């Protein structure tokens, strides 16, 4: 505990031009893009399911989850298999490029924005040298209640 409270290991991945961080203990593996089977009549950001070594694993496109314009998959596109509330879920990201240690004191609360809905899944931001990382709250990323709200507002 002593060590953990001072620093935390995170996986850094890229979406569009921003860099995001998730705690390393929540990450099971990082996979190259593979065949994804579409599942009909699910939320738009649910890309489908993959065969992850014999286990059918749901895949979420983080770009569409965060409302970023979708882009075709490239050589660097990765699926991060994250374990969120005892479920394995794959997150499609543009690239997964780093593992870093964050000082816990360096984590700042998310910047106040008018659209608080978006800030729900942002746990905080961390500035290391000249890079800014957004630390995600993964269970909020999955939570469908917030999404339903969003849909209701939009719809």
């Amino acid at each position, binding site marked *: 505990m002593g060590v953990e409270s001072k620093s935390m290991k995170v996986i850094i991945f890229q979406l569009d031009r921003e860099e995001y961080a998730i705690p390393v203990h929540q990450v099971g593996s990082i996979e190259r893009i593979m065949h994804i089977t579409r599942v009909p009549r699910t939320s738009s950001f649910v890309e489908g399911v993959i065969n992850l070594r*014999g286990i059918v694993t749901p895949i979420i496109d983080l770009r569409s989850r965060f409302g970023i314009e979708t882009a075709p998959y490239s050589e660097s596109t990765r699926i991060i298999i994250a374990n969120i509330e005892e479920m394995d879920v794959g997150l499609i990201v543009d690239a997964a490029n780093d593992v870093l240690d964050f000082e816990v004191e360096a984590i700042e609360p998310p910047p106040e924005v008018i659209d608080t809905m978006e800030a729900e899944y942002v746990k905080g931001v961390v500035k290391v040298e000249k890079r800014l990382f957004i630390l995600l709250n993964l269970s909020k990323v999955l939570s469908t209640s917030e999404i339903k709200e969003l849909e209701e507002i939009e719809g």
Partner: protein
Amino acid sequence: METNQYLDLFIDESSEHLQSINDRLLELEKSPEDTSIVGEIFRSAHTLKGMAATMGYEDLADLTHKMENVLDGVRNDKIQIDAEMLDIVFESVDHLEAMVLEISQGGTGERDIRRVVELLQAIELGDALDQRKKEQSLPADTTPFQENSVDEFTRTVLKQSKEQGLSNYHIIVSLREDCMLKAARVYMVFDVLEQMGEVILSTPPVEDLENEDFETDFQVLFVTEESREDIDAKIMKVSEVHSVHITEYKISETENKAQVPSAQIEKDDSSNENNGASSNSKQALNKTIRVNIDRLDVLMNLFEELVIDRGRLEQISNELQHSELQETVERMSRVSGDLQNIILNMRMVPIEQVFNRFPRMVRQLSRDLNKDIDLRIIGEETELDRTVIDEIGDPLVHLLRNAIDHGIESPNERKKNGKSGTGSIELKAYHSGNYVFIDITDDGGGINREKVLKKALDNQVVTSEQAEKLSEQEVYELIMASGFSTADTISDVSGRGVGLDVVKNTIESLGGTITINSQLGEGSNFSIQLPLTLSIISVMLVEVQKEKYAIPLSSIIETAIVKKEEILRAHNKEVIDFRGSVVPLVFLKDVLEVPIELEEDEYYSLVIVRKGNKMAGLVVDSFIGQQEVVLKSLGDYLSGVFAISGATILGDGQVALILDANALIK
């Protein structure tokens, strides 16, 4: 690790013994004069007590002990069997079950059992008075052993030996007060005795004697051919023995009533128990082993991987057209097919496991509701996959409660309608084809069509126009719609809003169906059809545009290819004339929102599926073929997706979704 192993064994065996106690108690209630049943209960309780004490679960051992005392009283005709007494014993068993459950969940098995213990003691004491009276009437010198310490096995053995012309002696051996190695002397005395006959019982028990946990005297019950003098002389040869006192041991009158049919077996049991060993020797004879269910699950999972790879190998060998490879793959497929049967069989469990808790439940409920109910169970040996067994319990409980509460009328009402006062419920399980059927039939009031319709209209489940058109069958199905309860008063037992719709959903999620039949005034029948196994199923693979879907063979009637001109339109719906009946078409590409990439053909490929007596034609683009696939869940995150019941992994490693045909038929 080691204690864990024992713990599992303890939990397994305790549950088995408790179940057997439960069963026997119910039998006993039906035929209270049959003392052999009490003997069996007593034996289970005794073993349970021994195990609990060994494992250090004191409350468990204590309660079992108290129960045992009461049973002993029953066995010796000192306690009358009546409903109140059985209620208390049942309650004790409930407590014991709760304790075992807690232990199995990692608890300590401690529980507040004072009330039950007091009740049990009250029964016991009430009869202890009688017992004392009886004892006074017996000659004083016959039984120095306490009545309670001579259990049934001992008595039977003694009786048997008497019949065989052997003598039963009660021997009191006193060692010299300055004896140094008491245990050794005891051992020598026993050695001498065992050369001449058999030691049936010793006070203090052998363990205490070995631990030198006694003063200078010990007593044994001894069966032998030898004369009293010979025994005396031989024991006295052991050094440091102060005196030997031998009297003939007589079996008292009351004990004679406690006869057990197969005395020979009892003899084995008793000697086992005297040695402190449980029934290990008996189990060694049985050619089965206990395998942890988790291991079977692991085996199954590994095998599923193999089935996926088998599919892949088959595909590769077909592509390569290499004859030796094809031959090998074919052989491998055959072997793995056999293996599949064996593994699936291993996971089959008799439905008894679920059924055997029902007699208790029905008894309790019928007492609570003041109804007389006779539950008949047929086919409890029918086997089902473990996963199904785990899930089917609750729906069955619900249906039974329903039958007792809503189905069976009160005794007065029954008599008024010219039926016998005792209602009967039949629970029947049987195999048929690839399915297992479970029928619950009662001879109660049946389902009142008008009442159901009125309720459905009140709850806006149907409109009045619809209601008129509904067939009997469809009306019955209404009672499984959400929030339906036909009992006039909402009781504790059933009808709490969460009704039969939950039952229906559970059964459908298991790939099964439920149908209801009823005759007003004569009773109802609920019939559940379940697949034998859930993990590996046969499917038809189809393509919808570029996507592959699997349709379970169990819901397919046949496939057909029709020309576009053959499609008829009725009410803006496209239908076909299929062997004389009008079958609506379901365009999968629309329902499943499949991206369109291919040109439409002038032929439609149809998969005709059915749900009960309704049919639908699923329009697909091409048929791939039939295949055995491993059913995988989509996981919690994607549960409840419309018309998809699961997923499977195909030979090429891709995931294909399994369609739920039931959801596609309206």
